[in-house]
């Protein structure tokens, strides 16, 4: 039931954030005022259906502009969402997360990679180098920097914006070159990896997930483990797509808060809550039951 609720939320969010249908018909993008606002997940603002702005694209746009060095607006938006939800966004609201999960359903041998694998730190490096340092310091004569993450890495942009726009727009089709081929190669790599590994982009590459992850230990939304109920059977770890030992670190920065562990726990020791007092009430209620 929880899984169905999450899938429905993912699908509805993907539809709402990409609900500009004329874009898909005309091969153009939405140009209205809603694009002042950032959506919570990684969703390219040049997707023909996109109604809002991608937080990582917006962050680079402001940092790379000639006028500003830092973006209070975008960082504040990301921090607000992170403080409230942490990586719940990744598990429930991100369209590119949904795409990876659907691809992972393709029948094949699945590989589990430990949540302690040092490759997880790659996303922090990508965040610092491609989203902050390069757009800030590698600038042209008028002081403007490129959005390096969008330009050289982001497979979400290639899938949601690059391919549809190039297919529908002859003038863009004529302009494609090496960078487009490189980005298609990265997209294919991401798709192939998603078949065998759960959420590879979110775990090793996504700079937005890296930021939200830092908020996981202190966000209002959190997971809690009742130590008295927990029998350390490790079923939470086995059910977790990221292989997190939930009973030890329920609010790990790697946790995408999909809630699989909550359903898998045989003693109902894991609980999620929003706020402080609510969790105490929830455990008391569980004890009464």
């Amino acid at each position, binding site marked *: 039931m929880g899984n169905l609720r999450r899938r429905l939320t993912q699908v509805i969010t993907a539809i709402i954030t990409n609900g500009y249908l004329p874009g898909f018909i005309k091969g*153009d*993008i*939405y*140009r*209205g*005022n809603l*694009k*002042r606002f*950032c959506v919570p997940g990684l969703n*390219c*603002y*040049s997707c023909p259906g*996109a109604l*809002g*702005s991608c937080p990582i*694209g*917006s962050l680079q*746009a*402001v940092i790379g*502009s000639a*006028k*500003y060095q830092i*973006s*209070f*607006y*975008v*960082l*504040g*938006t990301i*921090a*607000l969402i*992170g*403080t*409230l939800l942490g990586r719940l966004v990744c598990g429930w609201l991100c369209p590119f997360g949904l795409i990876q999960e659907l691809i992972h359903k393709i029948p094949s041998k699945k590989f589990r990679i430990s949540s302690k694998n040092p490759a997880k730190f790659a996303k922090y490096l990508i965040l610092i180098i491609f989203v902050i340092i390069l757009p800030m310091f590698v600038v042209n004569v008028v002081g403007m920097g*490129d*959005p390096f993450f*969008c*330009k050289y890495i*982001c497979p979400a*942009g*290639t899938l949601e*914006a*690059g391919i549809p*726009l*190039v297919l529908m727009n002859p003038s*863009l089709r004529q*302009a*494609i*070159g090496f*960078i*487009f081929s*490189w*980005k*298609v190669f990265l997209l294919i790599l991401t798709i192939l990896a998603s078949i065998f590994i759960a959420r590879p982009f979110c775990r090793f590459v996504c700079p937005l997930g890296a930021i939200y992850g830092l*908020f996981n*230990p*202190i*966000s*209002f939304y959190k997971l809690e483990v009742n130590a008295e109920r927990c029998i350390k059977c490790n079923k939470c770890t086995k059910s977790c797509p990221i292989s997190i030992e939930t009973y030890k670190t329920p609010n790990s920065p790697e946790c995408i808060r999909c809630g699989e562990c909550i359903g898998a726990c045989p003693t109902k020791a894991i609980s999620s809550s929003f706020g*402080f007092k609510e969790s105490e009430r929830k455990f008391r209620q569980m004890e009464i039951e």
Partner: protein
Amino acid sequence: MKVKEGLRWILLIASIASIVIGIFREEVLTVLVKAINICLECVGIG
């Protein structure tokens, strides 16, 4: 736990304040201008 709860509220207030500062600095306009034009870098052309 009290420290964590305090930090949570401080972050919430700081993030809202940061958004307001960003609005006053007219960063929103930069976001809007970038987002309403096809981002050639995102597409893989620019």
